[in-house]
């Protein structure tokens, strides 16, 4: 029993990491209609950027900020110089999926000669253990949970209370109509890539921090868990992605305790298949992505 309580604790950390990543991914899809399959590679690149910052003797927390900045700028440029031109050219959704997969492949292979095949880990003392009953977490893991909670509340506030957030929702619902109403959709989309890119970079660093070591091959595994969470919640729905992250994080950690950690991604995939068969629109499907909560 204690094993499962402990697994629940890891599940809390896991869902935090997945939530940061999946909300960013699903907002890219919901607002800009772009399924960015290079997301996992941007995450792993940011993790490596933070690794080199950390290796230079700088705290990993500053490395996290640098990783998020990298993710933000990189995603923005990726959209500006690759995705947006293809979209303007009228490439169909399916073509865009192929474009982003090609970008993902190129990123992984450009990164490989730079960072090498071997696993690396951050120079960071995970801090003292904190016990809550049978749940034992490190200080770092608690910080990750804290970051995720603050970020989710921030996204909620952004989408609900700010002009930018409302403009994002309008752009998601109907870009043409939003533009006709005087919303500068181009700038809205740019800010979406900047914000979600920062979440992507941050997610990459916290995912790497949470696992003992990471390697270039982790990019694809990240992507699968994120896709599972995003699709489970209903693609394009930030609140859905949060729920999806909670479920995927918990279920994968509990199954790892009960069965084998080798199959975490397989469990995530099984959930994905079940959702696709039973409820392909996801848990929170509504007409128009990013509809208001509730």
């Amino acid at each position: 029993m204690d094993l499962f309580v402990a697994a629940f604790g890891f599940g809390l950390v896991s869902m935090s990491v997945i939530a940061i990543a999946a909300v960013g991914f699903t907002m890219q899809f919901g607002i800009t209609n772009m399924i960015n399959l290079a997301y996992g590679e941007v995450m792993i690149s940011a993790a490596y950027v933070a690794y080199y910052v950390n290796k230079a003797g700088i705290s990993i927390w500053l490395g996290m900020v640098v990783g998020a900045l990298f993710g933000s700028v990189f995603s923005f440029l990726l959209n500006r110089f690759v995705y947006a031109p293809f979209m303007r050219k009228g490439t169909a959704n399916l073509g865009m999926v192929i474009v982003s997969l090609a970008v993902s492949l190129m990123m992984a292979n450009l990164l490989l000669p730079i960072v090498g095949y071997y696993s690396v880990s951050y120079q960071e003392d995970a801090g003292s253990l904190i016990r809550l009953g049978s749940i034992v977490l490190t200080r770092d893991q608690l910080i990750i949970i804290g970051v995720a909670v603050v970020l989710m509340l921030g996204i909620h506030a952004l989408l609900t209370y700010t002009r930018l957030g409302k403009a994002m929702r309008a752009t998601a619902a109907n870009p043409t109509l939003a533009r006709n109403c005087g919303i500068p959709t181009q700038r809205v989309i740019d800010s979406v890539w900047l914000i979600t890119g920062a979440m992507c970079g941050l997610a990459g660093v916290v995912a790497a921090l949470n696992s003992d070591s990471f390697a270039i091959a982790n990019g694809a595994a990240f992507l699968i868990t994120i896709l599972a969470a995003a699709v489970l919640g209903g693609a394009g729905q930030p609140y859905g992605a949060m729920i999806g992250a909670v479920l995927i994080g918990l279920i994968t950690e509990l199954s790892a305790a009960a069965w084998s950690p080798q199959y975490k991604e397989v469990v995530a995939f099984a959930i994905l298949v079940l959702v696709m068969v039973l409820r392909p629109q996801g848990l929170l499907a509504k007409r128009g992505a990013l509809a208001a909560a509730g």
Partner: protein
Amino acid sequence: MNTYYAANLLIYAGIDIIACLALNLQFGVTGIVNFSFIVFQAVGAYAAAVLSMPPDTANGGFQHYIGGYSLPFPAPWVGGAVAGGLLAIPVGFVVLRKLRSDYQAIALLVLSVIANTVITNADKFLGGAAGISLVPPPLSDVINPNTEPYEYLYVGITAVCVVLALVVVNRVVNSPYGRSLRAMRERELAAAAIGKNPVQLKMTIFIVGGVIAGLSGAILVGFIQVWAPSVWLYPETIILFAAIIVGGRGNNVGAILGALLVPVGFEEVTRLLNNNASIANLGPPGLIPALQWVAIGLLILGFLWFRPQGVRPEPRRIFEGGPE
């Protein structure tokens, strides 16, 4: 250029052509973005391997796999093709039924990654990460596989299979059925409105493509005699997509051209670069293969940008007596 090298090149070309014809039928003609194509090739290879091999207690029991039926040629190849088709049924049932086409692509991509993870970790099932080796070449009990005539024989059987695949896909593409497929690809709702069942059409083509892909895997494993998860990682599918995009989506001649230009070219360039020690040892380890993958990515982006219809575009089918 010796015989072995020429035979090797021809057999690889044949396998790539068969695979590209199948993928072109799915992606080019029908519009199914099958990102797990390589899984269908892999399942055909595994099936052909375990059907042709003795039980895993042979050879001192150094490898573990299920089955081992020592069946004579052509049973393993037929089995490989059937396995590809059988796999397409449950996958198609989940993926093609309800999902939007870009979701389908993602689901198939995820399937490809996961299938590889599962087979790698399940080491008693199909050899795990180490894979299966010592697969007996077809007809090895009749002719010694290490002779020149055997090379010609293998090229010959491969050529027969290429012709067979080409006849099948040409019949489908140039029939009224093919017209339904193209209509659905262009506008699914309109095709459904005139009474075509999109799910059924896609499902059929998914299975036909799976059969051909399984056959290509069986031919490949009979030739290289080993099979392991590392040879069917998902980027292998992207090479075939690059071939179709370069050659010309929806055009069988284009698919053949693409197969000769991209996968065969990729293999050859790898071989030439590896032969040249001064290039092969350039930069950090793994630089040259990594840059080749980058080149594949650039090829896809470049063609989608400058010439999305490919080198040999799909012919526009014009009917006599129609409006100008």
